[in-house]
């Protein structure tokens, strides 16, 4: 019974993280897998969604809930939330509306970050772009730590708990809500990839010259791809902020850029199903490592968390060398493209 309970708790906890990563990975897959834009700075959009949601959440919750106070929404955040949270837990409908509002804010923030990141992305080739975006990724942590009105500087800020209506079942309800959002986005992304828009993105990835010759505006499509991918990353950042109800300007490149890349790499780039598989594998693996690492505490003369880095680094390298196409290969929608490819090679 105890073991079962533990397994259930583990899975429910896992599902929340899985949902957040699935959304990010879908966003990354649309940029890298479908369009071929190596966005090494998805941290930029994720942090944008998380920090802007966190910064606006208390400020917006106060007038919407009709709470009058002279306290400062950022620096006296904890005292304000003692007023806000009880109201939220007794007004589930308002709380859910706020949840949706914050999701929209996160998505909008992500889209804006995407628009900013697209400025270099439409000009530069692969490697310059990757370097620039990697550097971009860190910028919001700097601003978050330096500009206190955003999220209160290094100590961070707490968010109103918009999932508090579930009461003692908050832990389960939160995972369920996150999973629901992720499933909707997964289905939507699967649909978008099959639309003419998605096929155009793939055409640009496979042969830019041909796509241009067919009258497609490459710049327009690349920008749209980054903005759409960043929109999803922003939503994921916002979800993560609402789930953990606290945000500090310390979102790390390892967690929010390297892991998503590893996930889409393992799953197979360009495939929506592969993204799902890759996310499930890496999130579970990562969670198991963090869960079991305490078994090694005291045995090894170092913090066991670093084994995580060793292991994931080695796994990525092995995949790159032995199975770069990932677990689920991208399926072409018609037989036509491959036939055309051979023809063009011969011609």
């Amino acid at each position, binding site marked *: 019974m105890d073991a079962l309970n533990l397994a259930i708790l583990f899975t429910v906890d896992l599902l929340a993280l899985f949902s957040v990563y699935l959304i990010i990975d879908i966003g990354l897959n649309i940029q*890298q897998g479908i369009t071929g834009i*190596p966005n*090494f700075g998805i941290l930029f959009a994720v942090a944008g969604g998380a920090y802007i949601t966190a910064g606006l959440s208390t400020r917006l919750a106060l007038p919407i809930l009709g709470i009058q106070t002279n306290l400062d929404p950022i620096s006296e955040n904890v005292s304000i939330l003692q007023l806000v949270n009880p109201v939220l837990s007794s007004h589930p409908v308002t709380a859910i509306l706020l949840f949706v509002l914050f999701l929209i804010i996160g998505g909008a923030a992500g889209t804006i970050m995407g628009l900013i990141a697209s400025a*270099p992305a439409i*000009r*530069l*080739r*692969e*490697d*310059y772009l*990757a*370097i*620039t975006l*990697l*550097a*971009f990724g*860190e*910028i919001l942590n*700097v*601003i978050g*730590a*330096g*500009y206190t009105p955003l999220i209160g500087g290094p100590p961070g800020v707490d968010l109103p708990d918009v999932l508090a209506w579930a009461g003692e079942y908050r832990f389960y309800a939160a995972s369920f809500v996150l999973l629901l959002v992720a499933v909707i986005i997964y289905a939507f992304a699967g649909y978008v990839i099959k639309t003419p828009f998605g096929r155009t993105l793939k055409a640009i990835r496979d042969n830019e010259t041909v796509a241009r010759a067919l009258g497609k505006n490459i710049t327009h499509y690349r920008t749209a791809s980054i903005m759409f991918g960043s929109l999803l990353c922003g939503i994921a950042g916002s979800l993560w902020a609402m789930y953990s109800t606290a945000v500090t300007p310390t979102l790390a*490149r*390892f967690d929010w850029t*390297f892991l998503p*890349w*590893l996930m889409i*790499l393992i799953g197979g780039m360009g495939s929506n199903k592969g993204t799902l598989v890759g996310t499930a594998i890496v999130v579970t693996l990562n969670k198991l490592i963090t869960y079991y690492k305490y078994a090694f505490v005291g045995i090894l*003369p*170092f*913090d066991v968390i*670093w*084994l*995580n*880095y*060793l292991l*994931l*680094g*080695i796994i*990525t*390298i092995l995949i*790159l*060398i032995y199975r*770069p196409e990932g677990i689920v290969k991208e399926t072409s929608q018609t037989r036509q493209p491959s036939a055309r490819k051979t023809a063009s090679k011969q011609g």
Partner: protein
Amino acid sequence: MELISIPTIVGWLTYSAFLSLMALGITLLYRTTKVANFAHASFVTIGAYVTYTLTVIFSSNPYAGLPVAFCVVGIVGLAIFYSVLEPLRRRNSPTVMLMIATLSIDVLLTGVINIHADYLTNIYAVPSRNILLSSSDFKFLGQPGILFVALGTLALCTAGLYVLLNFTTLGIALRASMENPQLAQAIGINVSMMLAISWFIGGGIAGVAGALIPLWTEVNPAIGTILLASMFCASIVGGLEQIYGAILGGFLLGLFDVVGTSDLASILGPWVAFYEPVIPLIVLSATLVLAPRGLAGISIRRKK
């Protein structure tokens, strides 16, 4: 208000020498292997910990770590080349895959460095984070010795590289492998070995730069990652296709970073210092806007 003071100039020259050394390695590896080596961050950090470990175990002078750091990180570079990049190169992996590879090497090495740091603390009972060795530095003309050693090392590395590339058979083979690997292979140059040598040299230079860091600023396992944006920026500003451009880029970025920050802070207020990490990005963006073709459309990178 004094805009340019002696300490500012000393800070600028020292920082620029570091940046140039780091960028030199990045540019060299980019020229030979056509990959942005994100693991350069860890290379630098390893160099720093080599120095620190030697001073802890043998209580030697910090500068004695220089040649050791060169060899250690050079060998790390060699190992990475043969175990990761060479197999990928043989598979004709796309650039993005190579970049993910260097990113994962960086993650792997970050793990190793942190384990080493924890090990130092647990076994030798010494601090292994926020280390500063500048108290054991010498003084020359009233300035910290690191200023002269950093500039001297930069001059030595540049001169060494120049002599190697221009006046030796090995250097000519190296340059041939950079310019046209297929042709070099066809006339019997072992291109793979040439690339391996470039990884040894590039890694070694990064190690030397890292080895000097504890004498200049506080070292912790993230120091390389913190400097990564700046070193890449220096490398790009200098022009990735020109090895010696890295030095120009380093000094230019150092000027903006050190002098720019201190001057702006004295004009606008101390809050400016918070945003110092953003400066490389602004310089990077400005360069890319002013010279997008010079940076994006380099013929050397274009695959046929």
